[in-house]
């Protein structure tokens, strides 16, 4: 493999020390945690041997929280306080959520991210998701026997910025360090591609409980390059349940069901759907709280007919992604099927028909995403062995833009741009002495701002006062490797950095997160101070290790004076490692970071230069 010849900058400072890292598939219906053990990716099961954790959270009157099977068992009994499919609410306002009318929750809608009123108080989807992550984190710690270095959490490729940020915030509440947010179809591609040594263009068709993703990737000698991705963030197995649910109501002639009865019937609908993946007909029987009886038979053929529009709907993003990638269906070498809902025969038939080939169903569609995430987490934690060198190049799914005059959206970063990516735009002031400016950032493909997703409003302050039109403010949009946007601004004439206040449209503010963190500690054995101290120690140790390696390998890149500064910062940090003062520790970390910044930059330049000169001395020149 060509890639092997390149020296890796980030090899583990102490290769013998395996860092504990996990991959987490935070699913709409089911969540899983996996890790790489002795070079093999495995899903970690709970004490009863269940690999899947139902993504169900129940808030009880006694301040306890149930997650998983216990909560699932109570859902028809205590529907209002038992949240299923919370992923559908992440980073969303109430008006974005489909089928609210048939949901048994007490929604709180004040414009931003929707929240739910439960016996335990008003909960944000971020807090609810954090409960699921907490359970998976504990499972991992218990089964791996130690603290986790970090995790890779998967998100639907089609998740927008707000949904990604909400996922990351949930991890933060749960006390889980996120090494990377990874797109679910990409995770599946890693697991499939590495396992089968696949080469060429592959597609991943991922129909889960609540989301649909479709990605096209080019696999070339260890590089996974996402060419295009598309999807539908509100289309999944749940919608098939919904169709059966409506069919039941139409055919059983029962009165409009209560919240509890609705939940029961939805459950029956899902069971029937899953049964029909292997059988020609399903019996649907239920006794409602109202005393009415439901007793129906649903034929597979009827079910296929009922859900035909849903299956057809998945092909719209498929076509879009292929078009964006400049490909025809026949250019795709294999279609990897992911997600429990791809077990439905009508889905498999539709895919086979469209691509003129049988889709690849030899993977466990429930587990492959978690396994891929675990493999990625292992690599990111620095555990990768020299012979497992592969690289992932992913994209953002939706264009990022700015609101301009007349409510129009101007694209700043187009969809399917490889991340990380940055674009800068220049603006000027229109009034004398103007020191502030506002921006509205949106995501989506439509021309009208009102038809795109509103991400955030940015207020730029601290522009040096000048005459109108004299200031040149360069605003830079940076999307990182998690697909998350950050914005920075600088006035070019003076070089002054403007400060930016961000108001997320469907996200949580920093203060809100801090309050939630406080709340979560009120009930936990852990406390806030201990958590923060622990996190800082991890970062400090990481910095100490990396600095040792850097000095050993490239100490000569520093002047004597610079070296003295680094050594002083090192001594200070070491002395504070054992202390209990997390602020002092943080400050020492910041000092050492600042002192080693130049060294890190020079090392990076040096390694790039070496790579360049090693391969093409003749062409580089100068």
């Amino acid at each position, binding site marked *: 493999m060509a890639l092997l010849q390149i020296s890796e900058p980030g090899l583990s400072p102490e290769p013998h020390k395996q860092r504990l890292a996990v991959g987490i598939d935070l699913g709409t219906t089911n969540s899983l945690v996996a890790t790489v053990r002795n070079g093999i990716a495995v899903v970690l099961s709970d004490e009863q041997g269940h690999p899947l954790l139902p993504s169900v959270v129940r808030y009880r009157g006694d301040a306890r929280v149930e997650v998983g099977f216990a909560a699932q068992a109570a859902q028809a009994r205590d529907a209002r306080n038992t949240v299923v499919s919370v992923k559908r609410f992440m980073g969303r306002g109430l008006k974005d959520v489909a089928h609210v009318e048939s949901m048994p929750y007490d929604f709180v809608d004040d414009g931003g991210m929707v929240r739910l009123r439960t016996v335990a108080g008003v909960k944000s989807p971020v807090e609810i998701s954090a409960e699921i992550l907490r359970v998976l984190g504990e499972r991992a710690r218990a089964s791996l026997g130690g603290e986790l270095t970090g995790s890779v959490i998967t998100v639907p490729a089609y998740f927008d910025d707000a949904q990604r940020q909400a996922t990351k915030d949930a991890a933060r509440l749960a006390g889980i360090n996120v090494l990377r947010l990874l797109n679910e179809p990409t995770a599946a591609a890693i697991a499939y591609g590495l396992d089968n040594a696949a080469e060429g263009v592959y597609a991943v068709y991922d129909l889960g409980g609540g989301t649909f993703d479709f990605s096209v990737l080019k696999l070339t000698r260890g590089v996974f390059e996402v060419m295009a991705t598309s999807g539908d963030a509100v289309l999944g197995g749940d919608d098939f349940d919904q169709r059966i649910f409506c069919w039941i109501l139409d055919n059983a002639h029962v009165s409009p069901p209560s919240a509890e009865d609705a939940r029961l019937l939805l459950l029956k609908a899902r069971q029937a759907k899953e049964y029909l993946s292997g059988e020609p007909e399903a019996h649907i029987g239920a006794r409602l709280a109202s005393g009415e009886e439901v007793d129906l038979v649903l034929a597979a053929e009827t079910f296929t007919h009922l859900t035909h529009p849903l299956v057809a709907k998945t092909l719209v993003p498929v076509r879009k992604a292929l078009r964006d990638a400049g490909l025809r269906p026949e250019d795709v070498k294999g279609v990897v099927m992911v997600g429990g809902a791809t077990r439905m025969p009508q889905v498999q038939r539709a895919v086979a028909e469209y691509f003129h080939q049988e889709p690849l169903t030899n993977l466990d569609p429930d587990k492959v995403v978690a396994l891929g995430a675990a493999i990625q987490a292992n690599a990111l934690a620095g555990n990768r062995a020299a012979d497992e060198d592969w690289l992932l190049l992913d994209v953002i799914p939706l264009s990022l833009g700015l609101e301009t005059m007349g409510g129009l959206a101007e694209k700043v970063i187009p969809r399917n741009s490889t991340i990380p990516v940055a674009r800068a735009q220049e603006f000027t002031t229109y009034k004398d002495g103007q020191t502030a400016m506002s921006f509205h950032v949106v995501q989506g493909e439509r021309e009208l701002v009102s038809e795109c997703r509103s991400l955030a409003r940015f207020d730029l302050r601290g522009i040096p006062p000048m005459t109108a039109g004299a200031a040149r403010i360069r605003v830079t949009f940076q999307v990182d490797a998690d697909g998350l946007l950050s914005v920075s601004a600088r006035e070019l004439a003076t070089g002054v950095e403007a400060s930016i206040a961000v108001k997320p449209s469907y996200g949580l503010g920093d203060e809100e997160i801090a309050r939630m963190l406080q709340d979560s500690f009120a009930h936990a054995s852990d406390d806030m101070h201990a958590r923060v101290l622990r996190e800082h120690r991890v970062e400090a140790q990481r*910095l100490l290790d990396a600095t040792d390696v850097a000095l050993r390998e490239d100490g000569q890149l520093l002047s004597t004076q610079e070296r003295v500064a680094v050594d002083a910062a090192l001594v200070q940090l070491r002395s504070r490692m054992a202390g209990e003062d997390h602020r002092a520790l943080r400050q020492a970390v910041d000092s050492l970071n600042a002192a080693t910044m130049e060294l890190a930059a020079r090392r990076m330049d040096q390694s790039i230069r070496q790579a360049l000169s090693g391969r093409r001395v003749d062409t580089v020149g100068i």
Partner: protein
Amino acid sequence: MDVDLRRDFFSLFGLPRVFAIDTEALELAYRDLQSLVHPDRYAHLPETERRLSMQWATHVNEGYRTLRKPLARGRYLLSLNGVEVDSESNTAMSPDFLMEQMEWREAVEEARTAEDAAELERLHHRLRQLAGEMVETLRGQIDAHHDYHGAAESVRRLMFIEKLQHDIDDALLGLES
């Protein structure tokens, strides 16, 4: 040897500064560079390294995006040679070209209104051919004749063609969904 890595994308990828680049060499160099600087390689390292890696990977992606496709590459080469394609002084277009633009737009609009997918596909195909010819022209203008002002006009034509292709893509998607 001291290469200013941030100076220009051609030297970043070790390519000669011409329009007709070896795209395979570009691809290889791109992958090699990303293998070196990508944030996934630095995720377990301290914040400073992570930030540097993000900046580098962003730069390498930008370089690849700029050099990979003829249109962006042409623009970039012209700008390295002091000709800005969309600067005011340069936007005067030949009347022929303006006429041609109008005809194309009408044809696309007509097919869109008639919901004629086959016609849209046909127009798309013709545009692709046209783009191919334009790229050939551009190569001659830049590499052989160093005619940067002529090349700027070709780049603008290409931009127009690409925009139309996007419009057709959108129209086709609209028809399908």
